[in-house]
């Protein structure tokens, strides 16, 4: 094997593991006989390690609100691409995807309830805010508003935050959609869920005057095969309606 002249470019590429095996062998042979090259290699290795350690993308985690923004943007663009619906629809606008830390601080101050995706029999104690424990293990989910558990076909108050509380005993990806009609649904929330764990979920608010809210909860496994879906239907009432009903 012939000796080669190892210039700095070749040496840094060797340090960064960018050479093929034949090139590596040639560089290694030259390195054996050159102290100065070995010193330079050490410097390249050190600077490479510093760059990787400081710029390692593993330290960077995409925040939940950015993930939601991208997914919702994607869905909105796809929807716009399909064109306007054939008839005018009274669409429920869901707002309230607050950044979670902000939301937590609001709730901590007001001593309100945070709805969380949770496992009913787990002994997990939440570290932030308050966790609504679901005791009815026959129900996979429920809706919580102002400390009240609202069962399927129950009533929720418009313009007030509510949360979907999910009892997870499956591993997979959770999706919560708002059903617009038979052909259209909006993705409101998605997250990875694992059995026995709970995840944070942003609150939702119904701000339109639509009388009914229909949600779909779906968990998909790793192969994208749907393994669980369920619908939640809720009557939406105004505060006045709710008050008069209570009386």
């Amino acid at each position, binding site marked *: 094997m012939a000796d080669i002249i190892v210039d700095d*470019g070749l040496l840094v590429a060797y340090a960064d593991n960018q050479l093929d095996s034949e090139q590596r062998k040639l560089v290694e042979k030259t390195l054996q006989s050159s102290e100065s090259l070995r010193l330079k290699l050490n410097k390249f290795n050190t600077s490479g390690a510093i760059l990787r350690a400081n710029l390692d993308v593993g330290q960077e985690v995409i925040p939940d609100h950015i993930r939601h923004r991208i997914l919702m*943007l994607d869905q909105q663009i796809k929807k716009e691409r399909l064109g306007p619906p054939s008839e005018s629809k009274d669409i429920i606008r869901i707002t309230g995807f607050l950044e979670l830390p902000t939301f937590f601080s609001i709730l901590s101050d007001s001593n309100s309830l945070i709805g969380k995706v949770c496992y009913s029999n787990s002994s997990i104690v939440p570290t932030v805010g308050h966790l609504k424990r679901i005791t009815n293990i026959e129900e996979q989910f429920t809706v919580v508003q102002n400390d009240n558990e609202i069962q399927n076909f129950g009533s929720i108050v418009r313009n007030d935050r509510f949360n979907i509380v999910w009892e997870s005993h499956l591993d997979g990806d959770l999706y919560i959609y708002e059903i617009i009609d038979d052909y259209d649904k909006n993705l409101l929330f998605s997250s990875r869920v694992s059995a026995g764990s709970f995840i944070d979920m942003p609150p939702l608010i119904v701000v339109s005057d639509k009388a009914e809210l229909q949600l779909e909860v779906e968990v998909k496994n790793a192969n994208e095969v749907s393994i669980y879906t369920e619908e939640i239907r809720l009557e939406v009432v105004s505060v006045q309606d709710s008050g008069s009903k209570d009386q």
Partner: protein
Amino acid sequence: MDFANTLIAIWPKLMKYSRSLTKGNYAAEDLVMEVITKILESAERIDPNTNLEAYAIRAIKNTFLNEVKWDNKTVSEINDSGESIYDETRDENSGKFTESGDLEKILMNLGSKCKEILVLFGIGSSYKEIASLLDVKIGTVMSRMARCRGSLSDQLEAS
């Protein structure tokens, strides 16, 4: 190709790269979201076999450079008072290039070409990918990388 989920997966890399160009976290995030929006809007026209990571990084660079051209007037105005909007050290709250403040300052001193190539390497791009992203030959990447790494080592030793 599932563009949205691919973009979510590469978002950390895009942010690291974007921060190397912009003044701070918010500007970097805006730049990345602008590019992500453009990609999602034009998804139907993008070849499904495209390397989306390289495509997005190139789009971030081009979008940033367009904004720089657009802001030329502002630059000259600020320059009159002796400052440049690209003087990232001015921004105390943001402009955080890396987790290490020392490295951040050193990279800024090395010049934009060095900073770019070192960041691309640091976020995990191969020399081949860097060559493609910067539209240069791989030999140029090797020589520039050696020169910039030498400067980086000198600065690290001096600091």
